[in-house]
């Protein structure tokens, strides 16, 4: 187990360095750090002097190493638009996105497990067919369209729920949370439903297909032959085996949820990282752009590594022998 974990973490670090390199190269080619710091109305001579001072005329590898060193210390450059360090800007917006992702994940897990198990045990009855039919339709509707439809029905027509923004938030040690106020929660409902709409069908189908395979195995048959109760067979013997592949695929998908937040946040004007990213694109704020890519890249790598390690813990074959 230990060897396994070490290997995964080493891989993670390598990937991070590669992402850093990509981000850095982009910055070099497109960005203009001088402009980021002093703006546009500055003389050529002053710019050149500043370039020299910032070490922007040094060879590529030297600058790269400097970049990595700075990054590790939390310095990812300055945002041209916000006139603040990029990391600061990102961290300020992160809670919004993370809470959204959390709420959606909750919905997905709470709904997909029972629905997936149910449709696996009763593959051909009417409710199952409706669920499966609904899930194909769900997968075919893009996130942003679902979001728009939800807004139209619940906000514009029915006026039950708000249509944009986060509502009231409470600041806990720097984390702006919308979970603690009723208003905040109300604002969270539509976006998280919209965000989960793409992943929910996927998870239901995933759990269902894995579960159906598991139900056909010899050991499940043996469990029936031992006279165990149905519930124990379904939820312990079968489901525990389903968990393993579901965790690997699912874990990665949860990370992918972050990509879809960009779409959702745009529709709901949700002040999170995704929304910030688009604004950065519009304003050609390269530093912020690159910083976002690096931060999100890091997030993906961390999530994937954690998922791999959790998989190693849950799967006894790896846990005991360390092999894979």
């Amino acid at each position, binding site marked *: 187990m230990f060897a396994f974990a070490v290997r995964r973490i080493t*891989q993670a670090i390598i990937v991070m360095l590669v992402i850093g390199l990509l981000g850095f190269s982009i910055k070099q080619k*497109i960005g203009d750090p001088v402009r980021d710091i002093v703006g546009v109305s500055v003389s050529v001579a002053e710019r050149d002097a500043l370039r020299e001072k910032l070490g922007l005329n040094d060879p590529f590898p030297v600058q790269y190493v400097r970049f990595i060193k700075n990054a590790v210390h939390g310095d990812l450059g300055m945002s041209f638009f916000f006139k603040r360090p990029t990391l600061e800007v990102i961290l300020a917006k992160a809670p919004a996105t993370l809470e959204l992702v959390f709420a959606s994940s909750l919905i997905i897990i709470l709904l997909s497990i029972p629905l997936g198990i149910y449709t696996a045990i009763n593959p051909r009855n009417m409710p199952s067919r409706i669920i499966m039919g609904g899930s194909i339709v769900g997968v075919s509707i*893009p996130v942003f369209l679902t979001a728009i439809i939800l807004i139209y029905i619940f906000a514009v027509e029915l006026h039950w729920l708000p249509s944009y923004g986060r509502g009231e938030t409470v600041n806990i040690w720097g984390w702006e949370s919308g979970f603690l106020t009723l208003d905040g929660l109300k604002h969270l409902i539509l976006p998280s439903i919209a965000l989960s709409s793409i992943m929910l069908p996927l998870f239901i189908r995933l759990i269902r297909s894995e579960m159906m395979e598991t139900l056909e195995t010899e050991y499940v048959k043996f469990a029936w032959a031992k006279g165990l109760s149905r519930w124990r067979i379904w939820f312990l013997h079968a489901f525990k085996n389903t968990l393993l592949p579901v965790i690997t695929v699912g874990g990665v998908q949860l990370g992918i949820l972050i990509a879809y937040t960009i779409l959702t946040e745009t529709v709901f004007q949700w002040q999170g990282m995704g929304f910030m*990213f688009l604004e950065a*694109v519009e304003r050609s704020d390269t530093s912020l752009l690159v910083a976002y890519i690096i931060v999100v890249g890091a997030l993906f790598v961390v999530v994937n590594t954690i998922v791999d390690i959790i998989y190693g813990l849950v799967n006894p074959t790896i846990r005991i022998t360390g092999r894979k």
Partner: protein
Amino acid sequence: MKQWKRFKDSYFLHSFKHDRVAIASFVVLLTLILLSILAPAIAPHNPYDTSSIDIMDAEIPPSWMEEGNPDFILGTDIQGRDLLSTMLYGMRLSVMIGCGAVALQAIIGIFIGMISGYMGGKVDAFLMRIADVQLSFSTLMVAIMISAIFQVAFGVGRYEELAVPLLVLIIGLAEWPQYARTVRASVLGEKNKEYVEAARVIGLSSRRIRWRHILPNTMSPVLVISTIQVANAVMSEAALSFLGLGMPVTKPSLGSLINSGFEYIFSGSWWITLFPGILLVVFVLVINLLGDWLRDVLNPKLYKG
């Protein structure tokens, strides 16, 4: 002729004829594709002809409603273009970009997958690591990032000019890992079969063995994922356009239309978003349904996506 007879007698066709959903989906898909190809011929107006567009015509509701105009069956968008025509042209763009992107992904992915599977060892491990990492980022994220960078690098104007080929490139680059992994899995399975060994014994070159012998046998899973990938490509393009990173407002695809119509929902012009939305969903839905059916018919356990 013999091929055709084999096809006619095959389980494939038999299963198709008996699956109502598959038939219905196929018919709808064919209709949509035909409509989009013929768009220039059948659209009542030409949405790209700036001279025929009058801004005063903007936001007219569908013809069956009170303020509707029979000239514009489904109403007009915010620039005064006929919605139906723009939708047809938009779907055409989606089909073009979708197919183009999938062709690109397939070429890159099959090539890499084949090399990776056939050579094995370090090459394989390296290539698949890259594929895995890129996959873990989700292709949408990769597409968004690449297009964001391109847009900042080229500037908005230039970007919009080159939008179609750029989108094909972006989506093609973002999604090749899917093909690579599928082909690689197939190749690994085929590599150890006897016909490969026989070919080697005869003295055929590796390259020939790879492309002329193994490749045809890996086509079945490639076909299955191709349908789903087209659906994904269309969705990705719609998403990019919605975000403003795709087709520009002057040559809108369905995604850009939905985007432009979004702000006007609150003021009541719901049709600008709804109709393109419905068309997009129906289009992607039938592709998904066909893909599902194809997967069940060709190999039930192959693609768990």
